[in-house]
């Protein structure tokens, strides 16, 4: 089996190693397409959205989508409980949800990876302190923690980012630490030590690029978890504060309408969340197989 391409070679572990590969090996076009479209909506929301997403008129409430009896082309996807245009809210919601999702994952990733590298490489008391804190954090149910944080910092879009980021960094810390523990024993790290590189240089120049793959794959998977958690926080009433349009909030707000036949209030944001999470996960699975088919920590 020595000629099998599945065998990881020395180069697959580095950033430089996979970049050209991404081009050559068949890209998952559908997930990338979805992400690009959503990003486009998020960036150009002002230009695309037909209405102000935060202001509606009570007289126009619960209008169904255009193709349903009673709907009009004025509101393509209908209106919500205070008469706001669902389409406009979805478009702006792409911005809020993606910003919340990506930023939370970014924060979790930066904090978790940093701690994971420090913990795994330095070992000793640093490892002890970081791992004990991580254990404690893990033992605290994530959403419980989120509710308390929400109560402390108060609700706002950015606070949700901070909350979700600080709930989910532990996943990174543990996985990255595990990765570093095995990297530490590899030749190139040993060589770097022998060559007299400082600890910081080794962590920055040798370990960081090598855990980047794992961190990126983890990020795509975490994005889904974070976006769904954002919705759960809204369900519990401590999510992105209304009237901001966030998909999770729309879903939680619209859940009452579901039983009342106003299906468009939850189906559209629900579909958006599903698309985003699915796309991120499919991309993540693809990347995971690309980087390391045997990677099992995720």
């Amino acid at each position, binding site marked *: *089996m*020595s*000629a*099998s*391409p599945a065998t990881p070679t020395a180069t697959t572990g580095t950033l430089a190693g996979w970049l050209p590969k991404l081009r*050559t*090996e*068949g890209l998952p076009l559908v997930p990338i397409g979805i992400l690009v479209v959503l990003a486009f909506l998020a960036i150009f929301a002002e230009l695309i959205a037909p209405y102000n997403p935060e202001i509606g008129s009570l007289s126009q409430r619960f209008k169904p989508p255009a193709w349903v009896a009673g709907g009009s082309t004025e509101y393509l996807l209908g209106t919500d409980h205070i008469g706001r245009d669902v389409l406009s809210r979805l478009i702006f919601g792409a911005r809020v949800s993606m910003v919340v999702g990506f930023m939370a994952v970014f924060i979790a990733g930066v904090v978790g990876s940093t701690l994971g590298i420090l913990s795994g490489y330095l070992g000793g008391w640093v490892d002890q302190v970081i791992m004990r804190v991580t254990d404690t954090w893990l033992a605290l149910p994530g959403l419980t923690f989120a509710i308390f944080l929400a109560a402390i910092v108060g609700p706002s879009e950015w606070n949700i980012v901070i909350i979700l980021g600080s709930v989910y960094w532990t996943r990174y810390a543990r996985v990255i630490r595990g990765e570093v523990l095995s990297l530490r024993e590899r030749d190139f790290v040993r060589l770097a030590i022998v060559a007299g590189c400082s600890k910081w240089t080794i962590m920055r120049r040798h370990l960081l690029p090598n855990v980047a793959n794992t961190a990126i794959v983890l990020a795509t998977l975490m994005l889904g978890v974070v976006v769904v958690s954002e919705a759960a926080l809204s369900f519990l009433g401590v999510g992105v504060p209304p009237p901001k349009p966030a998909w999770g909030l729309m879903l939680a707000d619209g859940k009452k309408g579901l039983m009342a036949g106003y299906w468009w209030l939850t189906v559209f944001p629900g579909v958006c969340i599903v698309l985003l999470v699915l796309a991120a996960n499919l991309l993540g699975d693809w990347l995971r197989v690309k980087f390391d088919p045997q990677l099992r920590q995720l």
Partner: protein
Amino acid sequence: MSDALLELDRLSAHYVTGRGTRVVRAVDEVSLTLQKGETLGVVGESGSGKTTLALAILRLLPTAAKIVSGALRFDGEDLLAKSPTEMRKIRGKRIAMILQDPMASLNPLFTVGDQVGESLRVHENASRRSARERAGALLKSVKIPAAVQRLREYPHQMSGGMRQRIVGAIAIACEPRLLIADEPTTSLDVTIQAQYLKLLREIQREHGLALIFITHNLGIVARMCDSVAVMYAGRVIESGPVRRIFNAPVHPYTRALIESIPRLGEGPERLTAIDGQPPDLASLPAGCSFQARCPRVMDHCREEAPPAFDIATQHLARCWLARP
């Protein structure tokens, strides 16, 4: 050569990945012949296509790989024309193989008796009981003490040497005509290695089976084999009777290999006596694939790949130096 047990005629097996953008020529135009009861050694560096060749013979290539051209005949039958079911009936029954890592070849969750008797049950419809009895006999034949009691044990309860013998027992269970052993001794220490090789030879003699011995250790080839094929970058670059190849190698690569065989008391054996790396099988250079490392490279080598030249009876070499 009607007596030939196995014939490969310009057999090529390629890995196609990345939706057809990458073609790895793992086995390229390999021609070999193996007579009944004969032992053939296949040598080469890691990645030279030895294992792929073995799997191609069994038609057990990974899904990404395919036999793209050539002919493959076993006992006069065209293996490439066989249906998957027919092929399955050949595997284990008429052609058996011992894998690179016999230690990991046993399923940890089933008893030894179960695993040894399994081929018998599948290929010969043996009853549970007779499979068990015959498995006991097989273990005895590979010199496992207290064989009958061992049948009930799990692989993890046995020593490494014992596990290897069991893998051997599985291979010969249905009395195959051909046994392919893919570096079966790589993971063993030297004494056990010798014992195991001895056992293999005994098995071969007793059952009169042909053996393909895949290794990177020319020393073993010298001891075990009747003929040898040297592979480099997916091709057989030189093949012939062992004695001839060792005494008069033609290809510079073969020569280097032979020179690197450690003589007594000359330190550890290595097979990296030649500087440089083998080429990327997905983007082979024009001309000879060994050109970059060849000490006797010529201009012509960079232009055209050498065909197989007949040097003597059964001695072939793919090298412009051998051009008559």
